[in-house]
């Protein structure tokens, strides 16, 4: 799903805009409000402009959530330490997960 090439941005309707909005956000740097193709449309459709503004605010604020906010209880480390003492527990760890270091096909 990408923004269709035949979109007439000068005569865009709100329904069409809504339809292509996920792709508009997914392309470029996600700054839909700065897209020159949409300047006239957004100026003429303040509800759409408000929607774009809100979604950009949400995406921008979300980046601040990257920093951790919570800490596990001491029980977690105590359990880890206890389990590391038992080789059988380590050996039983399920190996059937996606290796984060595996190369791309």
């Amino acid at each position: 799903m990408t923004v269709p090439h035949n979109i007439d941005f000068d005569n865009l309707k709100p329904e069409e805009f809504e339809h292509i909005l996920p792709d508009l956000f997914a392309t470029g740097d996600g700054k839909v409000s700065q897209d020159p193709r949409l300047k006239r449309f957004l100026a003429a459709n303040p509800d759409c402009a408000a929607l774009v503004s809100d979604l950009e605010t949400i995406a921008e604020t979300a980046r601040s959530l990257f920093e951790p906010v919570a800490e596990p209880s001491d029980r977690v480390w105590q359990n880890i330490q206890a389990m590391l003492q038992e080789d059988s527990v380590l050996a039983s760890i399920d190996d059937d997960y996606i290796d984060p270091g595996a190369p791309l096909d």
Partner: protein
Amino acid sequence: MTQALPSRTNPGLYKRNPPIAGEAEAIEAAQNGDAEAFAKLYNLHKRRVYTLCLRMLGNVSEAEDMTQNAFLHLFRKLGSFRGESAFSTWLHRLTVNLVLMHLRKKGLSLVSLEETVNPSDDDTPRRDFGSRDQILAGSVDRVTLERAVAALPPGYRMVFVLHDVEGYEHNEIAVMLDCSTGNSKSQLHKARLRLRELLRNPSPPHPSVYPESEQ
């Protein structure tokens, strides 16, 4: 099943995970069996791993269990870390993979992942533009957004956290969730629309996600 390292396709993610002072030495020592070095790695990364689990699972107890599981896997797999990406990037990916595997095993799983990331019709955000007299800019901070994210349906929350918070690309999320790239984009958009609704009409915070000290 093979995966891409996020750092290869998403330099931005690598930038968000800069090396931590003393981390490289701790990794090397832990790879050689130094228990104190492993404890140091735990202390350096426990909050971020736990926060990631909490956001993805929405439940303190499960998040603690998954944090424990992630570090046990780390202990076992540390020797395979080759330093091709930031250690925290690698550890996050390991954690995400474990959480997704846990959810599949739980039953979110036994239906196809495509369904897993599709909440019911009742959860679908309304397809209207809403009133523009309540612009969110300036009224949303990380605390209010965090609470709204906790109230999202699990499928929406998963894609939102992976893309907007953790910085994964849609093609990476599609591989992780075994869905199409288009589906990932669509789910993210619906998640943001739902968040907009939640932020404009806030409800009390989700009790299982926020410890009292966080509220």
